[in-house]
């Protein structure tokens, strides 16, 4: 059984594609609609988070901060998956504790290569 990965995005179609890609590769997936929803679902053996940046209720940067503030998930890899490509926002994400940054659209093999790499 593959590692449990949380995917956070306000777009249902993006959650669907990320989930499909990961499940097809043998991972287990838990989905959240935004940062707030993600924080409420943050429990159990989640090994990694893939999150969008711009979301209602709570954005990706704040979500990263809250995850890093939770002892159990302090060191799990967090990848930003967003249309945002500005260097300043990336720096902001990096400063908050993001592990990496993928600009949409992603290719499945690309996403899986990143997941494999960060999960070791």
């Amino acid at each position: 059984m593959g590692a449990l990965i949380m995917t956070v995005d306000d777009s249902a179609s993006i959650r669907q594609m990320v989930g499909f890609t990961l499940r097809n590769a043998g991972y287990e997936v838990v989905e959240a609609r935004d940062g707030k929803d993600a924080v409420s679902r943050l429990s159990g053996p989640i090994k990694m988070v893939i999150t969008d940046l711009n979301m209602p209720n709570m954005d990706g940067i704040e979500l990263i901060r809250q995850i890093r503030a939770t002892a159990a998930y302090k060191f799990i890899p967090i990848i930003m998956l967003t249309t945002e490509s500005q260097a300043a926002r990336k720096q902001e994400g990096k400063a908050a504790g993001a592990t990496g940054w993928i600009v949409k659209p992603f290719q499945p093999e690309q996403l899986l290569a990143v997941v494999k790499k960060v999960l070791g």
Partner: protein
Amino acid sequence: MREHTALAREVLERLGHVGSGLGRLVQQREDDFLALGEELQDVARRVQEIAADSRTLHRLASGDTVRHILEELMAELNAMQALCRVDEDAADLAMLARARELVQQLAKSIREYARVVRTLQMLGISTRIESARLGSDGRGFSSLADDVEKLGYKIVEYSDRIMQQAGALDALAKTAEASTREMHGMQSECSYAAFSSIHHSMGTLHAMAEDSRKTSDEVSGHTADIAASVGRIIGSLQFHDIVRQQVEHVEAALADARAGIERAPQEGRALAEELAVTTDLCALQQAQLENARTRFSAAVSSLRSELAAIADGVRGVRQRTGGFSGASGPGAGGGATAALDHMQRSVAQIAANMLSLAEQGERMGHIMAEVAEMVAQMSAFLGDIEDIGDEIELIALNASIRAAHTGEKGKALGVLASSIQRLSQDAGDSTAAVATLLREVDGVAGQLKAYATAYLDTSRVSEISGELEGLTRGLREVNGEAARLFSGVGAACDELAARVDSVVQGLCFDAQVSAGLSDAAATLGDMAAMLREHVPEAARLAASRRLAGVRARYTMEQERTLHTRVLGGAGAASRANGHDHGDNVELF
């Protein structure tokens, strides 16, 4: 130049018209994208199932199961050929020929006795005449004459019995020879048929293995192409979110423009500046909407072509798997299922031949046993013949003694005694020849008995026949499984390709989105052109500074690039440093 207040009213009205529902235009298509995503997942899952079944099918036809069955079959056939070659060098036929030759020689030797019998009869008559002539002196010779006559009858009797037996034996040996020849023919035919069949099957297996290897490669190629198409579709489906955001940014920019105009005084420089900002903003958002339309259309167009490619890939798998049966329908024609059918029939035929051969062998064994028994009975005559030799010798000795007792009067009887003695010599030679032949016949009987035993031993044949039946059953199972998979793969491919075709045909929502974006872009373009005519150049220069701030609100590189292209200014692209993972990936 029109009055700015009236112009502002028209701009507000038209911006309101363009802006309302612009975001929903893309957003409301989310269900279509989600449905497509569901469809894609199901298609991908079914393609994987089809590919797995197709691989199993080809592995089944050329893999370990069939190879194992063929190896077993080869071993059984080798064993069967060994059984078929019970008398590989036709020694049984040679032995039967030798038996018939001995019978003929025996008949010849027995015919020699006829001369002995005639002489004995003459000697008997002469002895009786001479005995009568001598009167009381020759009284004892009448019993000698009786002995000679009795011996003659005995030889005739024995000779008749031997000749009768020899005739029967010759007839039986002739029948046995014919049956043996027939059986050798069957053995040879059975052996040839079996090996020709197995060679054919082995050749077919190798051809199938080679064909299946190529097929597996091609099926893998098709499934890899399908997987690549699925990957590209996953990329394209994300454009709903990407384009939605881009259009929402346009909607927000237009709302800001409206708010700016609404906030400005009804006339004067401030309104002119707002209208100037709106002029460039309209031109900029026209470019953004056209870009959004192009990207959305390209994404949906890619969905269509990649889905069509998936349908083609599925048809490719179908076509390649169709080659498995070598014909249009399941289980028909040549190809692997037909080859398995052929092998199954061949093995069943070989098993039937084996049983038929065993029955023939059993009958042959009985005939051989009968021949052997008859030959053995003939060797029993050996004692009788040897008795005759001994008796002649005794009679000759008796005649000599009686002639000596009779003295001068018995001289003539002495001559008879000498003749009986010579006859004894000749009879002894004939008896020895017959005895030699009978001894040889006895040896032949032993050999024929051994052949009969071998023919009658059908236990191994039954064993092999049972094993062949097991192999036939194994092939039937493999064939049944292959036919089931073939039928399943074919039906699944047909159904899936038709379903994907139907999805492609129904994929037309982009036309409405494209038309909506195009209309909005055209309206914004018209407004920009209209505003350029009525807004002073000085006001537009002042506005350009404010527009620089709009750039900072974009999230996508594409939006920034367009901004730079339409309004000018610095726009260094931000590139990721993903290297191994692509330009859009950066690991910190």
